[in-house]
């Protein structure tokens, strides 16, 4: 199929039609923050962090396929403010005690807070009552830390198979629910996969401690997205 032309932040790029704007931006070294997005699984656009101006409208680029002559702004002050506010909302909505979290330093939510230099959320902390589900022999689900991105739900092997992870309830009562019968024989590999899918420390492998010391973790020294921004590739 012939290439199309799209404009990102004032610069024209040729791109494959139908490819998600997020992926095109990434290829050309433009980082657009994401949280609910996970490489290789169907995007859902629920965190809204990747919201950009597409032809003047606020749209999530993880779910929007590129079309010819599309004009995209990814990093205006207004958009960055929206993203920072969403990060603050998530910190206020859950119980994110970073110092006590195994994922600290490797957590995408925390990394975005670092990127946006969040010193304190502008919102009062809700301190909702949340449980920890430790019934599964291999993994724990700490609902306090869950940001309800649905990555674990969407990372399903075969669509026709019964779901392991699902949502329950609605609105601000929504939470992740694990089918304990179907996951009773989870092995280490699946447990690791589930943990890796989670952007925060909500899915944690049991009987596994801190591998990497604080200071050497993924986002301790380099901001999230810097790998994309530093690649400097142009098509």
């Amino acid at each position, binding site marked *: 199929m012939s290439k199309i032309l799209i404009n990102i932040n004032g610069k024209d790029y040729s791109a494959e039609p139908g490819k998600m704007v997020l992926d095109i931006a990434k290829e050309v070294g433009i980082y657009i923050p994401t949280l609910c997005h996970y490489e290789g699984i169907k995007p859902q656009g629920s965190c809204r962090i990747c919201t950009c101006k597409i032809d003047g409208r606020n749209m999530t680029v993880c779910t929007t396929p590129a079309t010819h002559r599309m004009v995209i702004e990814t990093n205006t002050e207004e958009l960055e403010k929206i993203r920072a506010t969403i990060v603050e909302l998530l910190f206020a909505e859950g*119980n994110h*005690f*970073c*110092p*006590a*979290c195994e994922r*600290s*330093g490797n957590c995408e939510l*925390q990394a975005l*807070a*670092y990127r946006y*230099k*969040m*010193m*304190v959320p502008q919102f*009062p*902390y809700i*301190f*909702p*009552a*949340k449980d920890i589900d430790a019934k599964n022999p291999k993994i724990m689900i700490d609902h*306090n830390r869950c940001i309800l991105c649905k990555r674990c739900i969407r990372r399903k092997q075969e669509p026709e198979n019964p779901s392991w992870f699902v949502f329950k309830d609605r609105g601000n009562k929504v939470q992740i629910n694990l089918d304990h019968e179907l996951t009773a024989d989870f092995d280490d590999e699946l447990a690791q996969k589930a943990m890796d899918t989670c952007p925060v420390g909500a899915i944690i492998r049991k009987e596994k401690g801190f591998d990497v010391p*604080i200071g050497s973790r993924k986002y*301790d*020294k*380099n*901001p999230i997205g810097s790998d994309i921004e530093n690649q400097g590739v142009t098509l």
Partner: protein
Amino acid sequence: MSKPIVATTSLAGCFGCHMSLLDIDERILDLIELVEFNKSPIDDIKTFTKQCDIGIIEGGCCNSENVHVLKEFRKNCKILVSVGECAIMGGLPAMRNNNAPISECLEEAYLNCVSVQANDEKIIPNDEELPMILDRVYPCHEIVKIDYFLPGCAPRADLIWNALVALVTGNEMDLPYEVIKFD
């Protein structure tokens, strides 16, 4: 010109943030040159003896005494800085906020816990002299106006240093990526 005056306190905290302040190593000598300390565990001055410029607050508020001290700081300091996760969001003490009402926490701690051995009279400490426990742990900025926030558990020494120097000299805060960490 007289030196800016700094006061510090640890409310419902672990003194880790104060330790981190001491972690500025030899720069502590520069700090002594730059500022004068008033009420602070560092110099053991127990009560405010004059109006201060900067109040550094470690820890959130879990009891009535914390609230009292925090309000004293607000009265006596021009600028208040919440330092560390506990001051900013309650931190580890606030893990009780979402789990159980305070009645349950007290009963667990003093009556029901397996390690409780000799409390036959089933007393939960209630001496008049003791501070009263709050229903939950409050971030400092929910109780008084806080002007600046320095996150971390504990905040990196460089963050505290950079921020203090900026406040004292009136320069912009230099906050490189490495110094803002929540753990």
